[in-house]
């Protein structure tokens, strides 16, 4: 029976060896060892960006670790998390001498909003989270964005850039910014299509909004609407789908 016993022992030992060998190396949660702790994380730049699905955002996401007095703290370990498909380069690290940590965010393949989290732990091992939102545009919505840049933003965007001076202030009736979800979310896709295609008077609104139905194709107007829905703030909820209760 010693042979059987030794066989059992051998099997157990080799199984354990196999298990340890194959197991993934435990991911060190804190990354580099933190030198100091923060009491708050704030976004320095890079939030609320609009990028393309599956592509890195144009600007890096920069977060800053602050202490109780609001002073930047260097050497704080910060980790970034996001929904499936989002990747960060680097995925975490310690804040630099100015108390900041920068990462390049690549958004997932679905168009829409992405809630990203930067997190760290306080001295008392309490978790501190900072939520940042980014928007990903797919092919259709990028087309909408390009159309917005060309035709719409000159009036609908109150901000001016060196290349494009805004006409917003010159209009007697102020157009709605496309991010103005409070107004635009109440309008159905059909209403938006009517306004874009036939102009403001189609819905008894200002004639300052000209019709684009003879200039843009229907697919282009739909792309524009898809884009408007994606950037609106507060977020647009599509009209309710009726689900069968489980």
């Amino acid at each position, binding site marked *: 029976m010693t042979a059987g016993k030794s066989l059992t022992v051998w099997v157990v030992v080799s199984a354990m060896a196999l298990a340890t060998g194959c197991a993934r190396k435990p991911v060190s949660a804190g990354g580099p060892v933190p030198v100091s702790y923060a009491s708050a994380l704030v976004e320095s730049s890079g939030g609320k960006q609009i990028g393309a699905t599956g592509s890195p955002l144009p600007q890096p996401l920069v977060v800053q670790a602050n202490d109780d007095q609001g002073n930047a703290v260097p050497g704080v370990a910060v980790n970034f998390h996001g929904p499936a498909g989002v990747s960060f380069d680097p995925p975490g690290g310690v804040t630099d001498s100015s108390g900041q940590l920068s990462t390049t965010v690549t958004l997932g393949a679905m168009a829409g909003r992405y809630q990203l989290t930067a997190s760290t732990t306080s001295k008392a091992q309490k978790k501190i989270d900072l939520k940042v939102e980014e928007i990903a545009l797919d092919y259709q919505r990028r087309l909408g964005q390009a159309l917005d840049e060309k035709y719409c933003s000159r009036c609908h965007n109150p901000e001016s850039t*060196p*290349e494009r001076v805004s006409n917003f202030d010159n*209009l007697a009736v102020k157009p709605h910014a496309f991010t103005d979800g409070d107004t635009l979310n109440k309008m159905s896709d059909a209403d938006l299509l009517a306004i874009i295609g036939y102009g403001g008077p189609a819905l008894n609104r200002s004639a300052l909004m000209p019709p684009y139905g*003879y*200039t843009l194709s229907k697919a282009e107007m739909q792309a524009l609407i*898809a884009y408007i829905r994606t950037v609106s703030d507060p977020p647009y909820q599509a009209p309710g789908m*009726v689900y069968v209760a489980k």
Partner: protein
Amino acid sequence: MQSSDPKPVSLWQTLFGDPTRAFGIVSVLVLVLLAIAPAKNYFSEWRHYQKGYLRLIRTRGEAVTLQRHFQPGIQQIWHPELGVTDRCTSCHVGLKEASLFDVTVQPYRRHPVIPHNTEQYGCVICHRGQGAATTVEEAHSSTLAWEQPILPARYLESGCGQCHRASLASTPQLNQGRALLARYGCVQCHTIKLPDGGSMQATQDAPSLSHIADKTTREWIFAWLKDPQSYAVSATMPNFKLKDEDIRDISAFLIANSTPIPGDNAPPIASKLSDPAAGASLYGESFCASCHAVQNAAGNLVGGNLGPELTRIGNKAKPEWLRAWIRNPRVYDPHTEMPHYRFTDQQVATLEGFLLAKSDADLLANVHLDPATPEQIAHGKSLVMEYGCASCHEISGIKKPENFAPELSRIGSKPVSQLIFLPGMQHTLPEYIAGKIRQPRAFAPGLKMPQYSFTPTQIDALTTALLALNDRAQALPPAVTIPPPAASHYRPAGKAGQIMADLACFSCHAINGRGGDMAPDLTWEGSSVQRKWLEDFFRNPGTLRPALIRRMPKFNLSSEDITVLSDYIMTVYQTPDFERDSMPESGYSPTQVERGRQLFYSKYACQSCHIVDAKADKGYIGPTLTAVGSRLTGAWIYHWLKNPQALRPGTIEPNRNMSDDDAGNLTAFLMMQKGSTAKEAKR
């Protein structure tokens, strides 16, 4: 342990000793063997995913519709002429279901909206991967036999580029990549043969170095070769990472090899250099910034990128050369895109002083070169040949090398097994291409490809454009490809043609398909404007659009030149679609004008973008119309109102689908807007 048994019975005897038992056992074995194939089929991955899909849709409101659309079994999209055999839809079942917009789990997401039907072209054309595979691993990853993994989403626009060979409005990344390939001189060393037969051409010609000693000093060449971007951040010249001795020898060779051009250096102009503000205002008035950028105090580049950046031009240009260049750039470079401004001597001196002051004391502070020896010059020449400088630059005595670098016509299908990767790199083709652009010299010692300073976005764009150059693109049937529009080599004729070449009109304006896009297309300018306005505009170009930064410069044209140009434009650049004099310049009935006014202000609300009454109207997207009746022809206004895009494709003025009556009344109203000078003249 068996040895301890008294009567050993072999396993064979136990099982097959009895023929009946043997028959039974063999039957069971055969049955099991027969069951393997159906079982493998039953437990296949795609069946698992299809079951999952049915579970997913069961709870949805539109379950019945979705169930009706669902087809069990392996699905296939087959287009032999495109080389497409795609079974992806066996697992990606909900691709076409618009109502699945909120599903985020794969493989059940619906396909994002694109201009094509997925069934028309299949999946692998854009996404790559192995279309014929029926397991996730084989379809998505590279295996020994099939090495085409799924393309990361960031390079997806490369799929569009296989068929669409011209720029597409909706593929900005691909367009950018192609433009970079042409602008940064990639195609000067790497041949890129296009499937249509031609090859990709560079859009920017690097300056000729045959006469460089006229223009700049050996010290500047040294500093430039050491690090082009330290002289100008926007420089397209890459860094060749040369040793200081090599740069010394190359600069020695270039100076020694240079031959002077008679007339490209001018003696100093004796003039009191007036206040420095005069230079800045002349630089502004001449709209130099439309083409040339200058770095401002905050480090941002301000200005266009048609001409070289001028932030440190004072370090580079010799004063006598700069003077001659400002006076007439065509003496030094007959093909330059810079217009020949007809500056007075005083203006030349003012601009010279202003530009020479743009210098950086540190740039050349540490450059001390001893006089060159013949050995150094000979060594410099061999280096110039070795690094292929003549691929981009014209250098007298050195021929442009042929096939200097590997051809890239099919780089997008290069087998991964032929690539050498850096340690830590993902073993995929896109990673390899991006890595080569990012750090070309890291891949092997002795590589000659220079270091570019591209941003990550630019590298992604370049990779996308290169991935579009693949075997499939070369082999696509002509019926599915959209070739680029034929390149126009239009050149205006006669005296007017000479003046237009001298003024480099085509750098900004396009005519008959040739030219830049900075300024309006002038193909039908003769039908559009009134002759008197055109002549006045040449004499003193005003701005039509208050919100524009880039504007027409004043060229100080002589009266004869203006007459020649106006004659030519008014006669030649006319649209065949309507007669330019078919509507009168004035004499419209007051009723018509009044109706036009009402249409302008209420029905069409043109004042949101245009100004007619300078006091009341404020819109400034479109041109100011206060004097439009002295600028445009009635026929142009009428046809423009009817369909703006027909006259100038891509213009943002919306087509209002106007009735003939409305367009006529509005034309009457607009033609009465003669501007203040005309009104005063009448009084």
